[in-house]
């Protein structure tokens, strides 16, 4: 179940989220966005919606969906 | 006629009555009394006075206040105004109104404390980067000064430009009778910041310089067409026309009266705005005029450049323009008449 939304067009491939994610749920895509960066993708099975990716991302890629 | 008042105090009080409610600046002779007067007076009327840590800080504080819609001013001289040039091009770029008072003192660098008119070219051309212009107003009496202060704020807001009030140091120090204007209602202009982002801004990377240059030229052309101000006399049959502004303009007017009484066909134009330059005044001059003579208190002749350009524009390019720069002070009527004699005798050669 998807708990985190991403905006691939914002990603600048800095890698901070990948290094910080405690469950190693994030990886770079093979595709590039319109600025030429390989944007991040989340493995939603592993993701625990801890919010660390949101915290460290400088570019507003992530939105953590709250519990309904 | 009103009471005797010192020039700098009258200027400061006139600003208050024109609705100014913010001053930030730094003391510098011969403008300091404006600041000292406002340090007490602004508090009385619920305004803001800040003794800034420098001239640069002063103009930037004015930028802040103007950004929020408040009528704001600063006053300085010589090197202080030089320090403010970046602030003035910034005000112009952001289309923020402000009044900058220059009580001119003679000299380059730190200069002197002598009254003069050596900042003419810098104020009319602008000393900051880019090709902005400021409205420049020049009084020749304390009464006129208080009227021009009100006009300075009104024009600055009407056109969203900087108004430079350029006077000689002596006017700030002298005393004359003066009727002060009535206290105006204080208003904030509508495009000031309110914290709510009511007025949207274009992002700095989305600005279009081509488009803006067209609008800027339209604005300046409108000012040039509508806001020229001058006083003139005896120009329709004059053989020689004096051009002079400020206090030297006043003694020039007196010299012209005396020369006329002695039978000489002379006239005068006294610019009150030097930007926009009063081109229309020259259109009224006798088409058979033999020459123009500027009377100015600087070393190299500055007003003469604009006179020459205007002669070319509205009359004939071969009409000579004369200037004997008087360096500093206020040339006496006697000195001005001597200049005239040197012109008609051929002793003084034309500059243009």
């Amino acid at each position, binding site marked *: 179940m998807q708990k985190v939304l991403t905006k691939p067009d914002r990603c600048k491939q800095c890698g901070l989220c990948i290094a910080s994610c405690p469950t190693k749920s994030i990886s770079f895509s093979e595709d590039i966005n319109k600025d030429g960066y390989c944007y991040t993708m989340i493995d939603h099975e592993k993701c625990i919606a801890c919010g660390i990716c*949101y915290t460290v991302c*400088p570019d*507003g890629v992530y939105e953590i969906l709250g*519990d309904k | 006629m009103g009471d005797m008042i010192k020039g700098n105090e009258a200027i400061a009080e006139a600003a208050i009555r024109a609705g100014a409610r913010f001053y930030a600046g730094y003391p510098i002779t011969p403008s300091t009394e404006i600041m000292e007067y406002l340090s007490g007076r602004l508090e009385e009327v619920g305004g803001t006075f800040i003794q800034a840590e420098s001239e640069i800080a002063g103009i930037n504080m004015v*930028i802040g206040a103007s950004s929020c819609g408040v009528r704001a001013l600063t006053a300085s001289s010589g090197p202080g105004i030089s320090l403010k040039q970046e602030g003035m091009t910034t005000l112009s770029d952001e289309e923020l109104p402000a009044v900058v008072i220059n009580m001119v003192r003679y000299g380059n660098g730190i200069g002197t404390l002598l009254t003069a008119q050596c900042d003419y070219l810098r104020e009319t051309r602008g000393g900051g980067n880019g090709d902005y212009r400021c409205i420049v107003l020049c009084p020749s009496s304390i009464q006129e000064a208080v009227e021009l202060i009100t006009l300075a704020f009104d024009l600055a807001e009407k056109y969203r430009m900087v108004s430079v009030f350029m006077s000689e140091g002596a006017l700030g120090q002298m005393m004359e009778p003066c009727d002060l204007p009535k206290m105006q209602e204080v208003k904030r202009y509508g495009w000031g*910041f309110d914290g709510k*982002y009511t007025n949207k801004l274009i992002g700095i990377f*989305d600005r279009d310089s081509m488009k803006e240059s067209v609008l800027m030229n339209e604005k300046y052309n409108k000012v040039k067409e509508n806001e020229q101000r001058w006083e003139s006399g005896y120009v329709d049959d004059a053989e020689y026309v004096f051009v002079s502004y400020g206090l030297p303009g006043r003694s020039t007017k007196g010299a012209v009266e005396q020369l006329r009484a002695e039978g000489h066909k002379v006239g005068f134009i006294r610019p009150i705005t030097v930007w926009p330059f009063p081109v229309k005044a020259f259109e009224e001059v006798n088409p058979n005029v033999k020459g123009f003579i500027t009377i100015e208190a600087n070393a190299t002749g500055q007003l003469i450049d604009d006179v020459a350009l205007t002669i070319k524009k509205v009359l004939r390019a071969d009409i000579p323009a004369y200037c004997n720069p008087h360096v500093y002070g206020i040339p006496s009527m006697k000195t001005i008449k001597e200049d005239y004699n040197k012109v008609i005798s051929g002793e003084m050669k034309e500059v243009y």
Partner: protein
Amino acid sequence: MAKAKKVPESIDRLMGFCPGCGHGVVIRLIAECLEELGQDKNVIFGIGVGCSSLLGGGLETDRRHCSHGRAGAVCTGMKRVNPDNIVIAYQGDGDAYSIGLAETTAAAYRNENITVFIVNNTNYGMTGGQMSHTTMPGQITTTSPHGRNCDVTGYPIRFPELVASQFNVAYSARGSITSPAQINNAKKYIKNALEAQINHEGYSVVELLSGCPTNWGMSAMEAKTRIDEDLTPSYYPVGEFKAREGK
């Protein structure tokens, strides 16, 4: 247990900061605090020149791009005439501590009721990585190609410590934009600083240490490590140097 987190609307646009630069986190933390304090529709920014300029059209609030170094003076003018708005100066270390040292210091000296955020990346970033007042001893920059010689150029300035110890200010702190824990800590400082302004306590400043991958020649993670393991222990401690009184 997931807490909803969404980037505040006032800054939710692509901005031109380099990949991995701390500016993006700083402006987000500021925007979050403004939202949480109910001040997001009551704010005016005075933006410095340098990488800070890149807030450009990405920040949708009342804002004035100030002349280089002059945000301290511009914000003073704005706050004095609009005391009910939150006025924030947002600058880099070059803008605030080099060309702007007089205005930055004077605003603190006068205890102006503004909040100043200074992003410190130990170089002049926007112009390509020249030495700044916060460059470390021995650090190689484009104008200290053999490493900074502090005997000749001076030692890095510690501004939050200076104002806390020498001036009468309300709040002074330094945070760092590195690990999630440090970022959350920095957010507390930012919120404290804004609350100091809201409660009319006086001048508040928070310096934020940020990586500069481009000019440090490092990856974003390497830059983070440099701050946590070199800058902070050796020169720029994280903490509150002047805490708010009577919180």
